């Protein structure tokens, strides 16, 4: 069972269709599946729903798919750093399901874990709670949020092996392990493919069972907000 693919194009071959739901790892521009996003932007696939905390910036990351108008709907917690994202949303050209960051992460985890719904205090009394079931546990009110299963998840890791075992580096881990579990198919891009047995079994973040295809990518790893200790402003 060969999981390693030669290119983003071959790894995505046969997996894309119009109107599909894609879950993407990454936070801002950190730990995003750059190569897979770039490849999707070259296809004619459209009407995508994309679940991702942010949408990159205008010309990098998921912003590329907003620019090509391939995305019909975003499920995100934050729009702040993406002018085109905000513009499309305010102009009514893009649907946006605002989902609190923790709820989004937990929805991905739950979907991958066979949990169709869970209760959370997050968003109670806000617009996020509108239309959702409310339930009281121990005198506190919670709302029901739904587990999310995606048609495809795309993630970025640091190292991976031929079994699909993945390790992430520092805060580039973020949503990637959660997104990996919630895709019916998961494609991972890594900075380095290592031979099997190299990764310490105690230190594998995403066991290979969750990963169907894996490629080595070239990563620009652009920095969104370079802040130095010498900077006056934060």
């Amino acid at each position: 069972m060969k999981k390693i693919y030669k290119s983003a194009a071959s790894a995505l071959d046969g997996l894309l269709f119009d109107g599909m739901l894609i879950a993407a790892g990454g936070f801002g521009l950190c730990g995003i599946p750059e190569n897979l996003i770039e490849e999707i932007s070259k296809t004619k696939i459209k009407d995508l729903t994309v679940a991702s905390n942010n949408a990159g910036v205008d010309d990098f990351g998921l912003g590329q798919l907003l620019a090509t108008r391939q995305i019909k709907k975003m499920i995100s917690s934050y729009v702040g750093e993406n002018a085109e994202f905000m513009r499309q949303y305010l102009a009514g050209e893009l649907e946006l399901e605002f989902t609190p960051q923790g709820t989004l992460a937990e929805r991905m985890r739950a979907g991958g874990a066979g949990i169709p719904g869970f209760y959370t205090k997050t968003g109670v009394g806000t617009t996020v709670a509108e239309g959702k079931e409310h339930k009281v546990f121990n005198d506190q009110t919670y709302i029901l949020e739904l587990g999310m299963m995606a048609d495809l998840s795309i993630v970025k890791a640091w190292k991976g092996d031929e079994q699909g075992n993945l390790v992430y580096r520092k805060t580039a881990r973020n949503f990637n392990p959660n997104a990996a579990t919630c895709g019916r198919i998961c494609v991972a891009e890594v900075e380095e493919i290592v031979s099997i047995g190299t990764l310490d079994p105690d230190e594998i973040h995403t066991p290979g069972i969750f990963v169907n295809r894996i490629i080595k990518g070239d990563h620009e790893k652009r920095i969104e907000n370079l802040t130095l200790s010498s900077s006056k402003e934060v």
Partner: protein
Amino acid sequence: MWNRNQMAEVAAKELKDGMYVNLGIGIPTLVSNFIPEGIDVTLQSENGMLGMGPFPTENQVDADLINAGKQTVTELPRTSYFNSADSFSMIRGGHIDMAILGAMEVSENGDLANWMIPGKLVKGMGGAMDLVAGVKRVVVIMDHSNKHGESKLLKDCTLPLTGKSVVDRVITNMGIFDVVAGGLKIVELAAGVSLDNVKVITEAKLID
């Protein structure tokens, strides 16, 4: 009246030894510059880091190491990393002792609005809704009034809420205010601010 740094310094007095704290974007980030001597505090960044260090030197910059404001940061000997679901388990599960956040509006019963202005500005709630719902103590730092001179401490918030009855304390450039039954209790006023000053400018019910 307090400036940004003074507000951060006042907020830093909230910190106690051994606390785990989440600092929001903006003035709250400045609080880490004023952690009192002898007080050991661990900063959480909700993108998946516990034990956040200062901003890096040029040599230390690492694209894989950012905070929730997407700023480059550094790690400490105590640092641990985790995924987003685990990060918010920490937050929602009440394991973080305190969150210090910015706000657009706070109401006299502790409602908080800080994520959007309908039709105008959409930022998104990010992790703020989870933080205010889950963290043990929520402290807001913000200017007392907006650029039109209108009170940001209100009877009721006019903007979409981030959380309902979630704020414990508000620190503004005019003073410190605790959310208590019946209104906002004045804990301290900034040097040069009189009770009359603050009462005139504040829409929310104040309790001396």
